[in-house]
């Protein structure tokens, strides 16, 4: 975003700007909506949650004497008579990135007050998220069918199942919550709540298209976490 115009405030670029923003009165993040700042700080906190999960995973995987199962084989699929490693995971990644892209465009159209476009893109994102959760459910059931449990598995170290279910479960919960909110916001956009400043159901505060960006931040974060899980859990 280009810097917003604030009466009486001189924006400076780079670190100089950082110093003058921090030293100024009223706000530190100039022109940043309260809700957006809140979402950023929340995501920072959530980053620490996922970092702690992944660090625990590293410590657990690193210190076990039993061999870690080869994820490439465990998560492989047998399709059309060939074993394709990590096929499902690759599709899931594809789906999540697709939904991230549609979300980014939804934010753009939201700011342009293009109600229709924004609404459809959010709906597309929600459907992408739903597909992802569905595939994850399929993956879970496939692994459970193969005998992988949180406390044991036939392929190697028992911690494999523990960390797999915990981390993907926690990520999946995030996705599911995101999907629910995406549907709600798609409804709100289509119903025009942001154009006529309708007050919210719970908070009784007026809505604004900036909420789409806040939702977008959350959704991109979910995608971001998946990038790390994909690298550390499936590829490593």
């Amino acid at each position, binding site marked *: 975003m280009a810097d917003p115009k*604030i*009466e*009486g*405030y001189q924006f400076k670029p780079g670190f100089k700007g950082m110093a003058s923003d*921090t*030293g*100024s*009165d*009223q*706000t*530190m*993040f*100039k*022109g*940043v909506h*309260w*809700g957006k*700042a*809140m979402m950023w*700080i*929340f995501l*920072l*906190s*959530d980053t*620490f*949650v996922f*970092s*702690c*999960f992944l660090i*625990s995973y590293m*410590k*657990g995987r690193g*210190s*076990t*004497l*039993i061999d870690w199962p080869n994820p490439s084989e465990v998560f492989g699929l047998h399709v059309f008579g060939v074993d394709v490693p990590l096929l499902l995971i690759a599709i899931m990644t594809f789906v999540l990135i697709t939904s991230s892209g549609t979300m980014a465009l939804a934010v753009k159209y939201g700011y342009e007050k293009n109600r229709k476009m924004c609404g459809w893109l959010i709906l597309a994102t929600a459907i992408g998220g739903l597909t992802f959760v569905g595939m994850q459910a399929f993956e879970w059931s496939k692994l459970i069918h193969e005998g992988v449990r*949180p*406390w044991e598995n036939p392929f190697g*170290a*028992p*911690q494999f*199942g*523990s*960390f797999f279910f*915990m981390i993907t479960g*926690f990520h999946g919960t995030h996705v599911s919550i995101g999907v629910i909110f995406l549907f709600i916001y798609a409804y709100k956009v289509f119903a025009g709540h942001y154009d006529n400043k309708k007050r919210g159901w*719970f*908070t*009784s*505060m*007026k809505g604004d298209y900036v909420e789409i960006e806040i939702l977008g931040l959350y959704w991109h974060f979910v995608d971001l976490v998946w990038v790390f899980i994909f690298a550390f859990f499936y590829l490593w």
Partner: protein
Amino acid sequence: MSEEQDNNKVVYQAQSSETMGGSASPSPDMDYVRPAEIPEQDLYHGHSFITKWVFCQDAKVIGVQYFLTAVFTGIVGLILSWLMRLQLGFPEAAGFMTAEHYYQFVTMHGMIMVVYFLTALFLGGFGNYLIPLMVGARDMVFPYVNMISFWMFFIAVAVLMASFFVPGGPTGAGWTLYPPQTILEGTPGSGMGILLMLISLSLFVIGFTMGGLNYLITVLQARTRGMTLMRMPLTVWGIFTATVLAMLAFPALLVSAIMMTLDKILGTSFFMPTIIQAGEVLEYGGGSPILFQHLFWFFGHPEVYIVALPAFGIVSDLISVHSRKNIFGYRMMVWAIVGIGALSFFVWAHHMYVSGMNPWFGFFFATTTLIIAVPTAMKVYNWILTLWRGNIRLNTVMLWCLGFIVTFVNGGITGIFLGNVSVDVPLSDTYFVIAHFHMVMGIAPLMVIMGAVYHWFPLVSGKMLDEGLGKWHFWITFLGAYSIYFPMHYLGFIGVPRRYFEMYDSPYMASATGMNEFISMAAFIVGAAQFILIYNIIKTLKTGKKAGQNPWKANSLEWYTSTVPPEHGNFGERLPVVHRWPYDFSVPGAKEDFIPQTTPPSEVVHTKVEKT
């Protein structure tokens, strides 16, 4: 200059001329403050009893709700400590108590006091009440989320208290909840007790995250015109930095709670290696108990500062106001708070020197830990240098502050013992540790809480607490608490290990018997003395004398509200405009010995104001 700007100035000139008397000719340029970036906050005003007092969205009411709930848990914790001291001092009189009971009391006392009492009181209680007032906001930025935050905390407390009544009782694993013993049979409350504890902690973290986001965004994005970060009272700095720590440290607690819950109910082995208990090999294997300790202390050490930093901030304000002098080295104080906060993420394993972790960590953590001693020491110097050449009102508030300095320096010095890795070896896991952390994060913050209660009670209720009762309350608490914990260090020197249900059959420990009786007596008296405060509050609410506006002649914005006590929205028609830091006391040339933050420079051109 906009029209709004002009109007605003008329208002504050009228306001400040009351306190300042006449002034030099106003010069519009020097009083210029940028116009508001953000429009007025849209507030939801409650209409019914429920929306006004129960599910209320006013941060001040939420603060009081947090405060009362935390005090309730604190009283539970106090009673538990009495029971523990009864066992330690007079085991014959505590015949009803088994070792199981004792360990359950130890655990619940620790967890309640650290998390549900001190953290909730400082951040939830003082944070909610003071942040919007001190930065000049109408309310917290997300009042609805703030309300949910309190009720999550309330449910967390309810779940915690419920664990007293489940089969097997509350968990007795020690407040650190170290696995494997936490979820194994040999520990009391390893069934429902520990599960409820973990659920309660998770709820606390979720609720706290909601509150914490509010505090942070209010400080960062909702300050009033003219309120720069470097003009905020140190109270806000302390609570703000503590909240940052909480937002980044509580995730580790949440993660460890989730993993331990899974170990308990699903039989995963995150923290559980192969274990033989009562002759049977359990269905665990390959996990690492030390991982839990790392996660726990990655949360636990910042947690110490989550309690300490608000106390640092608040005490700075109290000392400054009541010695009628600016806080010495404000900039240094701010950087010290921020520095301590940042460093606190790099020192966690100094709790684990003898835990069996990689022994080479000792070098790293001893160094980082002792580095923290420097900013902390600077804060202490600045407090006493604030007293130096001040004009000290020796009222109850100041007494609590002086008590804080004595106990905090004492506890801080023993912290250097325990942080310095090889000195820690003989002293860790002994009574020295107990004495240290009670002195530094039990008694010292408690002194600040009490001082803050006496200081801000006139704001909250509009009435002054009784000074005579307050002094009795202080002296009994201070002398009693000091005589509990100062001698206790020496039990640690002998080598008396902590968490011992009874200990007197060792020859060199038998000498500790008399000491333990003395400590227990002191503990009973100190605990009972806290009821003086409750009596004082009830009496004051009924018959206390009216405080009026700004009874302490302080500068910060919370004393310049439109009504006392402040109503929802805090500042009436117009938000205050800030022109200076909150510590302009005894400025040469000024008529009174204080200049409120709202006083524009044009009114005090004849004074020698150095810092704004």
